[in-house]
C-alpha cells in the first residue's frame, strides 16, 4: 500500500493523473459499453443504410426482441451485485413457459390468473435458493446449479412435448403495440423498461438496494456493521427468481408456446449482459443501466448478423465471447489498480 505513506487528509492523496482517475471511476465500464453500443449502431447505419437499418423501428425492435433478456439480466444484476451468482435463470424461464402454456392451454385458466401464479412460483424458487445459500452457508454456484436442474426437470414433468398457445387473450396481449409515432413497442418491451426503472430506483434510493451494494463490497464488514446481511441475500435471490419468472412470461408472449427446452443456457446470456454492462463479478460495483447497455449490445450483435445475411447465427456467440473476454480484462485492470 503505497498510498498509506501519505498524509491522511491531503485531498490530492487520492489519484494523481487524469487517466488514473478515469480508470478508477466506477462509471467507466458503463460509459465504455454505451460508447461501444453507439459505435456499433453507427457502423451498422453506414453499412446497412440501404437495407433499412436506419429505421427507428430497428432500434425499437432491440427492446421488443430482447425484453425478456433485459428482465432476466436485471434480476441477475441484483445477484451479481451482491457478490453471488444465479445459474437457475434459464431453467426458471423455461419452466415458466411450460407452466403458463400448460395452465392456459390444458387447464383452461385465464392468463390473468396464471401470471401472478407464475410470478409467485419463480419468486418462491428464488427465495428457497436464497434461504439455503444463507442458512447453510453453501456456495450460490452449487445451490443455483441444483435449481437449474430442478426447474429444467420440472419442465419435463409437466410435458415432454412443447405446448403451443392458441388462447385468444394471450395472442392479443402478445400483439398489442404502443405507438411511439416513429415506431412501436410491444407489451414485453414496456414491461422490461418499467422493471429497469424500478430496479434503478430500488438499487439507488432504498436501504435495501444499498445493502446489496454493501454486501457485494465486503460481506464480512456488512455483517459487522450490523446490516441484516442474511435477509438481504435471501431477498436478492427472491428478486432474481421473480425476474426470471417475469422474463419467462415475456418469453412466452414473445414465442407463444411452452417448451421444456426453451431458454436453455439463457442464464449465461444474462450474466454476459451484466458483465458487459460493467458490473464486477466480485460484486459491489456496477449499475443496472449498464445492464441495459449490455443487453442492447448483445441484441445489436444479433441484428447486425441478421442484416449481414451471410453470417451464421453462431457468430453471435463468438462476438459475445470476444466482448466478454474484453470486458473481464477491463474489470481486472480496474480492480488491479485499486489494489496497487
Amino acid at each position, binding site marked *: *500500500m503505497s498510498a498509506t505513506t501519505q498524509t491522511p487528509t491531503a485531498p490530492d492523496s487520492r489519484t494523481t493523473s487524469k487517466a488514473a482517475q478515469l480508470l478508477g471511476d466506477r462509471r467507466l465500464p458503463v460509459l465504455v459499453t454505451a460508447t461501444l453500443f453507439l459505435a456499433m449502431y453507427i457502423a451498422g447505419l453506414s453499412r446497412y443504410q440501404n437495407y433499412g437499418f436506419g429505421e427507428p423501428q430497428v432500434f425499437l425492435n432491440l427492446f421488443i426482441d430482447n425484453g425478456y433478456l433485459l428482465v432476466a439480466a436485471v434480476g441477475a444484476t441484483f445477484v451479481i451485485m451482491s457478490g453471488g451468482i444465479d445459474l437457475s435463470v434459464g431453467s426458471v424461464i423455461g419452466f415458466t413457459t411450460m407452466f403458463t402454456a400448460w395452465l392456459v392451454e390444458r387447464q383452461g385458466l385465464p392468463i390473468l390468473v396464471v401470471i401472478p401464479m407464475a410470478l409467485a412460483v419463480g419468486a418462491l424458487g428464488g427465495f428457497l435458493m436464497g434461504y439455503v445459500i444463507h442458512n447453510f452457508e453453501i456456495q450460490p454456484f452449487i445451490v443455483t446449479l441444483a435449481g437449474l436442474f430442478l426447474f429444467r426437470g420440472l419442465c419435463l414433468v409437466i410435458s415432454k412435448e412443447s405446448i403451443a398457445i392458441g388462447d385468444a387473450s394471450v395472442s392479443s396481449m402478445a400483439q398489442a403495440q404502443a405507438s411511439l409515432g416513429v415506431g412501436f413497442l410491444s407489451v414485453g418491451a414496456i414491461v422490461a423498461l418499467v422493471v429497469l426503472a424500478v430496479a434503478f430506483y430500488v438499487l439507488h*434510493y432504498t436501504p435495501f438496494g444499498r445493502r446489496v451494494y454493501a454486501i457485494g463490497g465486503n460481506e464480512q464488514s456488512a455483517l459487522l456493521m450490523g446490516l441484516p446481511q442474511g435477509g438481504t441475500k435471501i431477498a436478492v435471490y427472491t428478486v432474481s427468481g421473480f425476474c426470471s419468472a417475469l422474463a419467462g412470461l415475456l418469453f412466452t408472449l414473445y414465442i407463444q408456446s411452452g417448451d421444456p427446452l426453451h431458454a436453455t443456457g439463457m442464464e449465461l446470456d444474462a450474466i454476459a449482459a451484466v458483465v458487459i454492462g460493467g458490473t464486477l463479478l466480485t460484486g459491489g460495483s456496477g449499475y443496472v443501466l449498464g445492464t441495459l447497455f449490455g443487453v442492447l449490445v448483445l441484441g445489436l450483435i444479433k441484428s447486425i448478423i441478421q442484416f449481414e445475411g451471410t453470417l451464421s447465427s453462431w457468430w453471435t456467440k463468438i462476438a459475445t465471447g470476444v466482448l466478454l473476454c474484453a470486458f473481464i480484462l477491463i474489470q481486472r485492470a480496474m480492480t488491479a489498480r485499486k489494489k496497487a
Partner: protein
Amino acid sequence: MAEPLPVLEMTGIVKEFPGVRALSGVDFRLFPGEIHALMGENGAGKSTLIKVLTGVYSLDGGTITLDGKSVRFGSPLQAQQAGISTVYQEVNLCPNLSVAENIFIGREPTRFGRIQWKRLRKEAAELVDRLGLDIDVTAPLSSYPLAVQQLVAIVRSVSTGAGEGQGTKVLVLDEPTSSLDRDEVLELFRLMRRLKDEGVAILFVSHFLDQIYEICDRMTVLRNGTLVGEHMVSELDQVGLIQLMIGKALDQLEELHEHQLHADVGETLLKADGLGRTGGIAPFDLEIKKGEVVGLAGLLGSGRTELARLLFGADQPDSGKVSIGGKQVSMSAPNDAIGAGVAFCSENRKTEGLVPDLTVRENIILALQAARGWTRPIPSAQRDELVGKYIKALDIRPANPEARVGQLSGGNQQKVLLARWLITQPKLLILDEPTRGIDIGAKAEIQKLVVSLSEDGMSVLYIAAELEEVLRLSHTIGVLRDRKLVARLTNGPEITSSKILETIASGEHQ
C-alpha cells in the same frame, strides 16, 4: 484527579475455551473521558477481554457493569446499541461505497422508504467536520488510504446510537495503529483526544509502547489471563511495564545467562541495506556473517517475524536491497531466497510449514524437490537415504518415515521442518520461534543443533521469545522495538538480559 464513577466496570471476568482458561478473574474499569491502555504480550488475554466486552464471546463468569447497570451482551450489535463501539485493526467498512454512506449505512435517513441522499451527505459532512477531519464524504471509501478509512470507521462507531439519544460511551480501538505511519498516527491521536474531551472512554490496544506513553492516561496489564495491575501511565516507566508484562524481575533473568559460543565467524554472508516495508518494519541494515548466529530480541509484535519474512522474500520490501555472498538478490518471492541458499522455518509450523496429512518422508523431501523443480524427481534410493539420515541425525521419533506428520509431537514436528530445510543445505537458516510450544528436552536439542550447525559454517538467524535463549546462542543480537531495529549488540559478558530489556524499553543503544 478526583475519581468519578467508572462508566464501565468488569469484575472477576472468567472465559474458558476447551482446555484453556483464557481469562481467570480479571477486573477492569474504565472512566469517562480517559484513554486506557490494555497491555500484555500476545496470549495474555487482551483480545479475549475485548471480545467478551464487545459481545463477540459470551461470559463464563464475572459481571460487566455499564453506567451502573449490569449488562450482558449476546452479540456485537447489542453491545453497540448499549454504547460500546469497536474499531478493529482491519477496517470493517465497504470500500465500494462512499464515505458518507459508510458512516450511515443501516440507518440512512429516509422519507417514505426513499433515501434522502442530500440529508445523508450533509449530516455526514457535519459529523466529519465536527470531529475536525478533512474528508470529502462523497468520495468512495476506497479512494482513501487505510489510515483515513480507519478514521471513517471511528466516525461511524461514535455516531452509531447517537440518534437514540445516548451516543457512544465506550470506544474500543484494537490495534488501530499497526499499519499506520507517524503522521497518520498523529491524526488518529488528534481524533482520540477530541473524543476524550467529549467524555468518551477509550480503550486502546497497541504493541507500540511509545504510543501508549504518548496518548494514554491509565493502563491495565494482563499476563497469562490474569490481572497484573492497573497503573497510571505517568507512574510506571517502560522498564517497569515490560517487567510486569513478562513477569520476571530483571536480576532473575540474568542468572540463567551463560555463554558457550564458538569464535570462528567467517566473512559476510548476507547484507541488507535499508530494507523495509511500510506497515511491516522500518528500514534496517543487517549483516550476517558465515557461521554466525544472529539473534533477534524484542517483544511479540515488535517486528521480528516481519524482518525475517523480508529476508526470505515472503513479503516484498518497498525499500532497500539484499546481497548474499556479495551478489545482490531480488527478494521478490521465497523461491529467490531458496535459490540463494536461505531457508525459513516459520513460527506457525502447523499452518505455514508442515502438511499434516503427508508422511514424515514427504514433508522432509518437499523443499529439496521444490528446489530441483518438479520435472526432476529425486531417485527413490537417494531420497530414502537422505530422509533416513536426517531422521537419525535429528532423532525424530517415531523414526518411521511413513508416519503422518500430524500425529507427531510438537517437538518432533519442529524437527521434521528443520530436516526439510537442512536437506537443502542452506547457507542461512532462519528459525522463527523454533522452540515455541515444545517440551524442554526437545528445546535443548534444537538449541544444541543450532550451535553445531553454526560451528559447521551455517549462518543462523534465530528468533525467540525468551531472551535467555537468544543470549545463549547468538553472536550478535538485534534488538527490535515498535517495528524498528533499534540496536545491534555484540554478545559478550557485559550483555545481559536486563541490558537488552533496557534497550527495548528505551529504544536506544547506549
